[in-house]
């Protein structure tokens, strides 16, 4: 089983991202379970959503406390919430930011984890450019496909088509595809 925890703020599509990740996994014939953290979410408040992926039925219903991967949709959360809590030492991290881990003050973190599994991408910028709204959730899924390899970009695109239609779908597919390429390039140039 592979467990993903997504952190963001109300309005950034955190819950939608977890749901779409589950749809992408379903498209690949796998079992997936997505659920929100069930708080009284408000715009701007910290929000968490979860997604489990597995090759057999998922029965477990506890929150994800020891994730294999983290998607952080809002870097300002780094100073407010212990987003890294429980992350496995070989876990993946994707952060929505133009900065590097070192610039974010996370150099120590990089040293204690596998650097080839850590990446950043300016997803909000991509969303603004392709969709016209600062909602980073979908491009981050594209980036996540690249950094983790746990899900294919085509599956993310199928999930986008299932969730959205018309221009919004096209824009999000373009943003996710570009995020995928950016992350792939970063991974190859840093860890070639």
């Amino acid at each position, binding site marked *: 089983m592979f467990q993903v*925890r997504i952190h963001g703020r109300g309005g950034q599509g955190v819950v939608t991202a*977890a*749901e779409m990740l*589950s*749809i992408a996994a*379903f498209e690949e014939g796998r*079992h*997936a*379970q*997505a*659920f*929100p*953290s*069930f*708080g*009284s979410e408000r715009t701007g*408040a*910290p929000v*968490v959503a*979860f997604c489990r992926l597995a090759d057999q039925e*998922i*029965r*477990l*219903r*506890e*929150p*994800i*406390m020891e994730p294999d991967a983290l998607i952080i949709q809002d870097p300002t959360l780094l100073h407010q*919430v212990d987003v890294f*809590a429980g992350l496995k030492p070989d876990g993946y991290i994707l952060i929505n930011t133009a900065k590097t881990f070192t610039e974010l003050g996370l150099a120590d973190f990089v040293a204690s984890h596998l650097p080839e599994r850590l990446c950043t991408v300016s997803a909000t910028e991509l969303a603004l450019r392709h969709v016209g709204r600062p909602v980073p959730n979908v491009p981050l899924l594209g980036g996540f496909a690249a950094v983790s390899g746990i899900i294919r970009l085509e599956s993310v695109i199928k999930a986008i088509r299932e969730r959205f239609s018309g221009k919004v779908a096209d824009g999000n597919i373009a943003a996710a595809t570009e995020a995928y390429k950016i992350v792939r390039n970063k991974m190859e140039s840093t860890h070639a």
Partner: protein
Amino acid sequence: MLKQMEGSRAVAEAVALCRPEVICAYPISPQTHIVEALGEMVKDGELQDCEYLNVESEFAAMSVAIGASAAGARSYTATASQGLLYMAEAAFNAAGLGLPIVMTVANRAIGAPINIWNDHSDSLSMRDCGWLQLFAENNQEALDLHILAFRLAEELSLPIMVCMDGFILTHAYERVDMPTQAQVDAYLPPYEPRQVLDPAEPVSIGAMVGPEAFMEVRYLAHAKQMEALQLIPQYAEEFRKVFGRDSGGLLHSYHTEDAETIIVAMGSVLGTIKDTVDELRAAGQRIGVLGITCFRPFPIAAVAAALKQCKRFVVLEKSLAVGLGGILAVNVRMAVTGMGLKGYTVIAGLGGRAITMKSLHALFLKAAADELDLVTFLDLDWRVVNRQIEREKAHRRTGPVAEALLRDVGVVGIRNY
């Protein structure tokens, strides 16, 4: 057809396949997505020959369902928590009148203190109102139970609550196998009311009954519910034939054959319990699980048969009988009266407190060693509890408890994830 979708949406689609004729809706979390989805389906014309009514309260929702059902319409509504309490009087009437309404309860705690998260306090508080209560373990079972419930309700002429864990199931995306209209039509015949308000053949429904016959009317309601204990396994078997999977039934046993310790529970926590039991069995523990699907009527004989081989049972429940302990536990203990089993009650997950494998693992090991107290509150924060108890000893005007505890723990939005 396999689909990846939200539990609420899956239930809404299943209800629509049952061809309801009247849906009355009043929003309350975590049930709202279900009636919203049904509202959309009626508006889009996807669900036809169905009257969708927005009502002004839960009391009105149940009253409209009573009227519609008495007029011969297949009627559906959904609620949770305080909403269920607000319809309590009408809910007793629906059962007393013998009207086969089907209602989803998206299980949620009851205030005060106000809390929107999941536990079973709401439906269990209504356990004696005359409705049948079926509990779903996952979203597949939640949608299947609705199809089963319409058939069972209409055969018995009694209302049924289909209970599913609020948020944990209603808001979870997972894989479900959505039946076809042809399958549902093959399983669920059109509603043939046992009683109906028909201008062509006028009758009245709802007479006042005095001491001369009231006990007999009530006895018949009890006997009617008990009939369901025969019908439910039969309908589950027919369900398997039409839909090709096991859903419903009175209870589900898991690794109970050789088990010395059996964990009894209801709803979605059964999944986490089964994963924990797999872990413990791999380590050599003889432990099993008994999931109760049908809570009302309570399957006394089936529970006794399922537990008769074990040495001890642990009832883990998301409800609290204040001043006594468990609610489900009392029912299970009645089933095993005189069997000489050790029984433990564990209150867990109240108000959305996460039930983790780690806590269950330690709990079950303690149970297997007979080191559990008769009643245990799982993962209770004793520091917080004791601090308040000390405060109340030291001062008279300590103020409201909920506010004091929130100050102690700090209002942290996302403490437990």
